[in-house]
């Protein structure tokens, strides 16, 4: 603990604690414990009541045990999908905030989620699932591929705007809003030209929820997200330096171009894969990193993995709320994250004290 400063409020205990190996292990273990706990507890609740004693009755064959089937095929993939999506969105939020030096940046506010949705909608409209490229049938990969490609395009556009000086929080937010409006207008244009079957699929997909999850869909999201996290993590020290600006980072020895490229690529990959499977889910990438930054301090070596783990637990719990709050109806999880995230976001914009704690 340090002595309180003569000017302004004294630094909290988090500020006095440097990221050491021991603290790193301690904090991540706690975050992991939280995630495991939410993964274990969450499937026990849901929109319908099931007999848990019956579900875990191993003597009864699975084919003959409806409670166990609900748990295994209904709730488990749903929970795993929520954990994966939450982890990817929170980590992408941390990465965007550091790279763009903008505390309000996240996949949602930058318009990356909207752009990605446009890609997915186009894939459905153009029937890309039946296309084959170089003799390789795209099939169900068409949607995630298009979503990731469009996520990358929007990130490229944001980067280009930033290079031209549009880096202030408000400027970026405005460009994000503009891109989101443009994307939804284009999505509407696409829907207008689509036939009935396509329209139904598009609308259903756009609701952005974790319902009707299948284990193979979870895997399709988890592989790119885990890959993205593995690519992002070694860049955490670079992100620390980059949050002081590219020139300062370069002066310290960071290969700025390479680091920037990898971080953008990994974040877009994660967001694209998540949007393609789970639809657009907002605010996770903003709320989780800020909450953790105020608890753990800004060091990305700790913040990035902690955000990924806590982002996972956060979305699992939000999805649980979505299932139980209006029983027996199930809300799209995006509704819950928005209901929690929007007041937080507005509070962030209004509260000078909170802002001062999180960024300068």
């Amino acid at each position: 603990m340090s002595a309180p400063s003569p000017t302004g409020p004294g630094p909290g205990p988090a500020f006095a604690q440097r990221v050491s190996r021991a603290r790193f292990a301690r904090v991540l273990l706690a975050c992991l414990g939280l995630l495991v706990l939410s993964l274990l507890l969450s499937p026990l609740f849901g929109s319908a009541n099931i007999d848990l004693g019956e579900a875990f009755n191993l003597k009864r064959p699975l084919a003959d045990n409806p409670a166990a089937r609900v748990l295994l095929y209904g709730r488990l993939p749903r929970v795993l999908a929520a954990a994966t999506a939450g982890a990817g969105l929170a980590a992408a939020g941390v990465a965007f905030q550091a790279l763009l030096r903008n505390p309000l940046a996240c996949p949602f506010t930058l318009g990356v989620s909207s752009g990605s949705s446009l890609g997915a909608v186009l894939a459905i409209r153009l029937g890309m699932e039946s296309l084959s490229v170089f003799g390789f049938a795209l099939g169900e990969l068409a949607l995630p591929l298009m979503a990731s490609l469009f996520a990358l395009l929007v990130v490229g556009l944001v980067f280009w705007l930033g290079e031209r000086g549009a880096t202030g929080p408000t400027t970026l937010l405005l460009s994000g809003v503009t891109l989101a409006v443009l994307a939804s207008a284009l999505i509407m244009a696409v829907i207008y030209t689509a036939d009935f079957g396509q329209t139904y699929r598009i609308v259903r997909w756009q609701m952005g929820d974790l319902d009707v999850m299948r284990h193979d869909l979870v895997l399709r999201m988890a592989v790119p997200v885990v890959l993205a996290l593995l690519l992002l993590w070694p860049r955490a020290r670079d992100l620390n330096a980059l949050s002081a600006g590219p020139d300062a980072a370069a002066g310290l020895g960071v290969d700025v171009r390479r680091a920037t490229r990898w971080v953008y690529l990994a974040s877009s990959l994660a967001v694209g894969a998540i949007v393609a499977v789970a639809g657009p889910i907002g605010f996770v990438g903003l709320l989780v990193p800020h909450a953790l930054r105020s608890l753990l301090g800004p060091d990305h070596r700790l913040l990035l993995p902690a955000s990924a783990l806590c982002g996972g637990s956060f979305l699992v719990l939000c999805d649980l709320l979505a299932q139980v709050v209006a029983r027996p109806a199930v809300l799209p999880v995006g509704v819950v994250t928005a209901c929690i995230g929007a007041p937080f976001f507005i509070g962030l914009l209004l509260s000078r004290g909170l802002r001062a704690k999180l960024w300068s």
Partner: protein
Amino acid sequence: MLRGVNLAVHPGEMLCVLGENGAGKSTLLRLCAGILQAHSGRIECAGMQLGGRGGLARATIARHIAYLPQDSGHIFPFTALEVVLMGRYARARHSFETAEDLQAAEAAMAQTDVLPLRHRPLSQLSGGERRRVLLAQALAQDTELVLLDEPTAGLDPAHAIALGRAMEGICGRGKALVFTTHDLNLAARFAPQAALIADCTLALTGPTLEVLAAAGPLLGVELHIGRLPSGIPFAVPA
């Protein structure tokens, strides 16, 4: 836009780069740090070929040359010690700093007189304290050459002098230091050698007082140069 600039600064020496706004002082420093690439020709600094194809890796350069841009500011509330430890980026072999890194960082902070501030967030420090923390970061980088872009811009006289003293301390440890400034008094007081950039090239170089004596027309002002009774040199527009 810059051409044919050849400057020499030896270990333990301090050199200031003067020039009008837009003369290319910052560009020169960024070229020397290997951050900007030359349109044509070669850039050599501290015996290293910088930039272009086959240029050295950034981390390699950063082990020999430390560079602090003018507008370096973290948006997140890193503590002063965390910021100084970032100076060990190019030297750290692991993702976590070792006891050796911590020792180097604290020694650097003691040198620039900011050790008592080590647990305070950088954003809560005054402008002068912040610059000295960043100077400690450059010092913790443990390089032969330190490049500072406008280190005293926006500082009050007391903080500017404190920073100048810290810079002298760095040279006293055998490092070469180059900084750009518009503060002619600071240049006269602390830098024994000066270079003046004008018309995209090196116009004057030599002992600072001699450069200042001839600098008036190139800076667009008439300069009055003298010494205070205490012997401290000064330069003011007449």
